[in-house]
């Protein structure tokens, strides 16, 4: 049984369709890349899996349990963690305190007297994995972009996730900064965490993922082996826009991803 099953998910904002009958699975410990042009509905799909948005139709099943009706906090408690495309640190808190939030809520595996000791250790471990212990007591509002992105991952990691949803963690980073983020994700995947990763920096993505899924205008147009998907004519079409038949209004309209920035 796959860890995550997304079945027939649909979502629209007014006349803009951001998901139409989207179905896919992710096995435990598998890394799935999510690509597609801007406005294809990638972030919306992540929101629907994480529970920050409700789908109009379809189901999200986690480890055999239907979680479609659960909120984001409850899903986080069941092992779903995510990072945001535009980092959302708790700006008044330090890096360590940010991570401690994840460890003491969704990541809380113990109760009673030892609970806070376990949470602290778990938070520290997440910082170690993300290579951020040096910055532990820095106010998170003053971090530079690479560290904000790493904090997003560290915080998600502190919840002890089984499924990690990453939204463009490599975007905006320099070529010299990329390897750090890539090796962090690979390390997590190798540790048995399932990953769904949206990324425009393709070579970073292809370094890590086992499978690739391409979305366009809310529909899955290809999924499978990463290199085959990238070379497939459908994917080339939507990226190069040669003979694409638009499935929605000719006007670009607001896109869920563009609006988020």
């Amino acid at each position, binding site marked *: 049984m796959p860890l995550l099953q997304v079945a027939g998910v649909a979502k629209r904002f007014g006349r803009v369709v951001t998901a139409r009958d989207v179905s896919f699975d992710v096995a435990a410990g598998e890394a799935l890349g999510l690509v597609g042009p801007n406005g294809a509905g990638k972030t919306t799909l992540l929101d629907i899996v*994480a529970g*920050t948005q409700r789908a109009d139709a379809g189901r999200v099943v986690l480890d055999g349990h239907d979680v479609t009706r659960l*909120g*984001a*906090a409850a899903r*986080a*408690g069941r092992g779903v*963690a*995510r990072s*945001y495309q535009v980092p*959302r*640190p*708790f*700006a*008044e*808190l*330090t890096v*360590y*305190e940010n991570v*401690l*939030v*994840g460890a*003491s*809520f*969704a*990541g*809380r595996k113990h109760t009673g007297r030892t*609970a*806070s*000791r*376990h*949470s*602290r*250790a*778990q*938070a*520290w*471990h997440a910082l170690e994995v993300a290579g951020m*212990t040096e910055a*532990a*007591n820095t106010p998170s509002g003053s971090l530079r972009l690479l560290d904000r992105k790493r904090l997003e991952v560290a*915080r*998600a990691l*502190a*919840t002890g996730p089984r499924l990690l949803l990453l939204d463009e963690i490599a975007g905006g980073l320099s070529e010299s900064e990329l390897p750090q983020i890539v090796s962090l994700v690979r390390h997590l995947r190798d540790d048995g965490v399932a990953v769904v990763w949206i990324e425009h920096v393709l070579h970073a993505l292809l370094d890590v993922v086992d499978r690739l899924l391409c979305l366009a205008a809310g529909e899955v147009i290809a999924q499978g082996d990463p290199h085959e998907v990238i070379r497939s004519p459908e994917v080339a079409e939507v990226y190069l826009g040669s003979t694409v038949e638009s499935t929605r209004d000719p006007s670009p309209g607001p896109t869920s991803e563009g609006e988020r920035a």
Partner: protein
Amino acid sequence: MSGPDVTRGSRGSLIGGGALLLVVALLAAVVPYVVTLGALPSLVMLFALVILGTTWNLLAGYGGMVSVGQQAYVGVGGYALIQLADAVGAPPWAAVLAAGLIGGLIAVPTSYLVFRLAGGYFAIGTWVVAEVFRLVTMQADGLGGGSGLSLTAFRGTDRVERVAFVYWFALALMVAVVLGTYLLMRSRVGLGLTAIRDDRVAASSLGVAVDRGRRLVYVAGSAGAALAGALIALNTLGVTPGSIYSVNWTAAMIFIAVVGGLGTIEGPLVGAILYWVLQQTLAPLGTWYLVVLGAVAVAVVLLAPRGLWGLLAGRFQLFPTTYRAHPVVVSGTVAPQPGR
């Protein structure tokens, strides 16, 4: 998996905490015997202001909820106290505590109403709710209509004994509310509340139950406002709907929390003392009193955006709620950990 060394607060926090303890001891054991009997009720008002500022700060500074309607619960507390003490015959101390409880209970259903509103609408909505509370109180039988109620439970009690009792009781309540707020904000729940304030969406993604957290803050903050209302009614021996449900209470709370320092435990203490001193010294000036209050508020917001406490103390905390984490020192001696 081994954890870090975590310190909360510094040696300064211990010294400051000790100094604060000394102030409380002086207020309890020395002040009542050196000031005039007439001065004690005005000190009770100071204690009530500290409670009001602390609980509004809990709402706005930690819960991110800017309510303009906390006078609803000040009023409920005042009326509940008089009804419980006079009509039911409860001892005054029990009536005050029960009035706080009633304020909290009423806040539960009210939260479902006002939580449907966001931002500015929440602020206005809470004010509307407070007006509704006032109008309902005036219409209800046995609550004295527009002229309010007088507290009769103290008839036959010696004046000195009454004033002294109210003073000590108010002091104890203030200490309990400030300490309770501190312990809440120092706990795991407090960390979650701070996360909710900074980013609600990110907090929920990390497993913080956002709605439950905000409701907890609203109910606790409203119970605190009701406690203060009960103390005010106990202190002035009566309530009128116009004064106890006055929006001025919330204006005072906002002044105290914002001028003192939002989102800190210490800020409302500083703000309440400043507000109280201004009130005491400027009262004879009439309207000019409000002009000065306004000028002080504007000056602080412009010159010290973190409030007076932030200006005076920087990041220093008398009531440490933050964490500092360091790698565990493997060899050599480990320094003692103040605070925990």
